């Protein structure tokens, strides 16, 4: 019982967002099953990043509802949650940013243990142990004591992924994780992400990497002008896109 809700990690229902007069998101509906990877594709300015931020309420949606494992995010007994209450949900959704956003005043290891120790209150020694394992997994065990500014972009993003995993999140949110990387190091980040995806991590990935979406996604969401235009399994989406808009987009992006 309650199987149906627990199998859905994230559910987004009718989400909309306006910035002033600009409708950046409208009628967004989708759900992400536990253990699956959903890629959100679409041209720049189509609202993908805002949508990701509406899921963990870094941006508060104007309409609609978001659920994490069946629990309503952002709203409690009909009123908005405070930032403090929201934190309990946000920490269950690890986030990876386009510009890494590592904390420059902390070493690599400190970046990874910061939230588990100081938000979740986990014991420091155990967390360090776990953080080392995660850094090892992203291939940066030997960098644990350096400060982020000494790392390359690809290394920073791999640390950022380790940081996002350190809280044992229910879902990972990726906001264009390779868009600010040099082409030759995009691969090292994508291979870490592919590994996570195949291990059954639940992931929502905003990306322009069509090959990643094709390989790793269980489902592709195509957005344009703040709306979902098409939702399909990757094979279907890339070989026979149903809408004219998706066809145009793919012609531009897939060579």
């Amino acid at each position: 019982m309650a199987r149906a809700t627990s199998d859905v990690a994230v559910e987004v229902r009718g989400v909309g967002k306006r910035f002033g007069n600009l409708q950046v998101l409208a009628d967004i509906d989708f759900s992400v099953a536990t253990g699956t990877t959903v890629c959100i594709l679409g041209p720049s300015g189509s609202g993908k990043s805002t949508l990701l931020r509406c899921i963990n309420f870094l941006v508060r949606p104007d309409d609609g509802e978001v659920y994490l494992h069946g629990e309503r995010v952002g709203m409690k007994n009909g009123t908005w949650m405070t930032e403090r209450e929201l934190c309990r949900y946000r920490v269950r959704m690890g986030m990876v940013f386009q510009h890494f956003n590592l904390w420059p005043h902390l070493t690599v290891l400190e970046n990874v243990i910061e939230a588990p120790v100081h938000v979740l209150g986990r014991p420091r020694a155990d967390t360090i142990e776990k953080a080392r394992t995660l850094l090892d997994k992203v291939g940066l065990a030997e960098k644990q004591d350096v400060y982020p500014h000494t790392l390359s972009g690809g290394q920073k993003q791999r640390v950022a992924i380790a940081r996002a995993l350190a809280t044992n999140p229910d879902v990972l949110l990726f906001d264009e994780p390779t868009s600010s990387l040099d082409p030759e190091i995009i691969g090292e980040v994508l291979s870490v992400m592919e590994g996570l995806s195949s291990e059954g991590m639940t992931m929502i990935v905003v990306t322009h990497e069509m090959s990643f979406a094709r390989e790793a996604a269980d489902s592709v969401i195509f957005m344009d002008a703040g709306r979902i235009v098409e939702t399909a399994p990757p094979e279907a989406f890339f070989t026979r896109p149903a809408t004219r808009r998706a066809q145009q987009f793919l012609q531009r992006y897939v060579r």
Partner: protein
Amino acid sequence: MNRDFLVVFAHYDQYLNGLWNTLWLSAATLVLASITGCILAALMLARPRAVRLPARWFVDAMRCVPFLLFAYLVYYGLPELSLQLDSWACGLLALVVYHTAYMAEIVRGAWTNLSREQIEAGRAFGFAGFPLFGRIILPQLFFASVPVIGNQSIYILKDTAFLMIITVPELTFAASAVQSTYFVPFASFVVAMLLYWLVTLGVEASVKRVEAAAEMRRG
């Protein structure tokens, strides 16, 4: 002339006592004004105009006032408002209030330049309110403004000298007392200057060390 210096050295205890008072007044001012400066900076960056504007006015007004005049106002003016404080309390109060304005401006500048993305990352990982400020924002503000804070500490150190006019027995007061008792102005003031200079060197050396640490921790 040499005899003058001997007179001064014979009263080294007065100098040391004055130096000690100068040091703790400066340190206490630095710490307290940093705390109140952070709060004031937060008010200056607050959204509501009713909060932001008065904070801005206070900082601008305070930075236009000579410290000596402000110390006079606190020492001689507050009793008229039936607030009786001793010279120590008046001196410290004047220093802290005055330098709060400068600290607030320093912190506000660093805060505006702080990357909003790292703060967003803090929120995304479950930090909010005071933990967000204390663990994510404050350390970055500190490392970004170390050189300016070091400068400001030297201004604080020198402003403590004005407190002699409200009878706080700090270093300048001690030098002045020795010279007026024994009529050795040159020797007594030169020794005081050397002591200020030594303290400043100490401040600069520690700023340099912290600056090296800050260099590694900048984005």
